[in-house]
């Protein structure tokens, strides 16, 4: 571990996370903006700030004019907004852009937020949303793939084939997520009891080789993250969590553009983020990655450099990603067992910040000083990594 991790003049972006919160999760019967309001007001309260302090907004998933809509709803006229639409990785991208906007002086306090009521509203479609004017409408939709599931399923099939792994090995990712969720009272599966490898294999097959238990939940939920300059953060309520680095890659919208299904843009995004932070992956104490499907985690761990290509499933069979293991991963229970409101990326940040503040009770990773959050959007389409750290 680097002893001078975030010496203020050497590393880091000079921007910190000062407030985080979740909205109500699960089944809420709230409208999207109602959940957004919960997450935002709670995150501002966490920071000791008020809405009048906010001069930057980043959000999506509300409407075509998401940030504009949210600004109107909140009754503010921000100096800076971002509604980059990149699925579940957008929130890690927003942290990067917010850090840049704050450093450039365009905004002082930025709110990053997301919420969805997809479970209450039954708004999730198995085929996804394909606009009629896109190439996919002519060349992919006619075959009726599940979107995004069938793409991840093909990645999983290719991965198992290429590296000689099995569905049993892959199931460990869902089993470990459940173990973490059993320690998190807010997790959708908190009271559900342990999940076994046999349970995963025996769950209904949706798009082979993935069963329902290899797939993330469909729930309501949301979160918000408040960022400001590190200098200002020192005067606020909670321990500032410094943004140490970030990186991103955008690779595809079609199911046919990427040559190798087992190699993702997370390789480049995480390398950039770690380089910016001046850290290596072995310096990271807790990792939160988007677990849309079990295979996503295997591919992402390898892309981050936690282990070599084709090694992830062997690597985790000893329980190292379960609570108490050597590689604390998805410590809230993840999209697989905690909450998955569609674009889960904001909740990766919420959990990473709480771990670094030491607020996680029975699931706390002792002494965590560095965290990595990695969002994935679409069909392994967009990838964004954020490195966070605390000086303590």
């Amino acid at each position: 571990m680097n002893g001078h991790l975030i010496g203020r003049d050497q590393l880091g972006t000079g921007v910190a996370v000062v407030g985080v919160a979740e909205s109500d999760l699960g089944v809420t019967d709230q409208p999207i903006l109602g959940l957004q309001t919960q997450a935002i007001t709670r995150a501002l309260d966490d920071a000791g700030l008020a809405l009048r302090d906010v001069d930057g907004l980043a959000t999506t998933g509300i409407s075509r004019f998401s940030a504009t809509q949210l600004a109107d709803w909140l009754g503010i006229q921000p100096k800076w907004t971002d509604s980059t639409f990149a699925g579940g990785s957008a929130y890690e991208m927003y942290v990067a852009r917010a850090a840049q906007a704050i450093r450039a002086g365009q905004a002082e306090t930025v709110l990053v937020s997301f919420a969805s009521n997809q479970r209450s509203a039954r708004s999730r479609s198995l085929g996804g949303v394909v606009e009629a004017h896109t190439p996919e409408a002519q060349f992919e939709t006619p075959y009726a793939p599940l979107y995004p599931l069938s793409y991840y399923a093909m990645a999983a099939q290719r991965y198992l084939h290429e590296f000689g792994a099995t569905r049993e090995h892959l199931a460990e990712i869902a089993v470990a997520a459940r173990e973490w969720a059993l320690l998190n009272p807010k997790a959708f599966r908190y009271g559900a009891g342990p999940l076994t490898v046999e349970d995963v294999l025996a769950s209904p097959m949706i798009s082979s080789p993935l069963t329902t238990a290899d797939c993330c939940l469909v729930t309501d939920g949301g979160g918000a993250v408040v960022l400001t300059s590190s200098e200002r953060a020192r005067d606020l309520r909670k321990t500032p969590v410094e943004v140490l680095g970030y990186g991103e890659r955008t690779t595809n919208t079609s199911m046919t553009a990427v040559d190798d299904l087992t190699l993702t843009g997370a390789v480049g995004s995480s390398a950039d983020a770690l380089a910016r932070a001046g850290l290596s992956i072995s310096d990271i104490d807790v990792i939160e990655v988007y677990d849309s499907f079990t295979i996503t985690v295997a591919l992402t761990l390898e892309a981050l450099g936690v282990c070599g290509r084709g090694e992830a499933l062997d690597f985790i069979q000893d329980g190292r990603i379960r609570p108490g293991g050597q590689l604390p991963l998805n410590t809230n229970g993840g999209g697989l067992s905690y909450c998955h409101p569609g674009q889960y990326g904001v909740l990766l940040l919420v959990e990473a910040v709480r771990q670094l503040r030491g607020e996680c009770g029975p699931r706390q990773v002792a002494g965590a000083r560095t965290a990595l959050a990695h969002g994935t959007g679409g069909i392994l389409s967009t990838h964004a990594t954020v490195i966070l750290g605390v000086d303590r």
Partner: protein
Amino acid sequence: MKAPSVAPADVVTVGWWDATREHRLTVQRCAECSGVQHPPRSLCIHCGRTDTLRFDTAAGTGVVDSFTVVYRSPVPDADVPYVIARVRLDEGVICLTRLENAEPDAWCIGDRVAVDWVDLDDGRALPVFVPAPR
């Protein structure tokens, strides 16, 4: 598979779809750099030229890059299970498609396949792939 409803061709893709009317599979090739690409675009992703693209008749054969058996379809009246696949054509590009004429569980990555056609109501045809003749 049953003939699905397919979004209309546009000025960029009409040459590709017109070839399907005579059951001819094409790939877009750049006359300048010889790069191939799919789906059709109005520029060459290999060299950036916009005036050098043409549709070349493909061999109609390839190999299964990956596949998935779908048990719960997004289309209400679809017959499940069916097989969605990425087929790497011998020309090098990858197509999304269906694999037909074999039991879903019998497919393997690396299988050789050949094109077959599902005729659409509007005279176009949709390429699917079947086991290649041995």
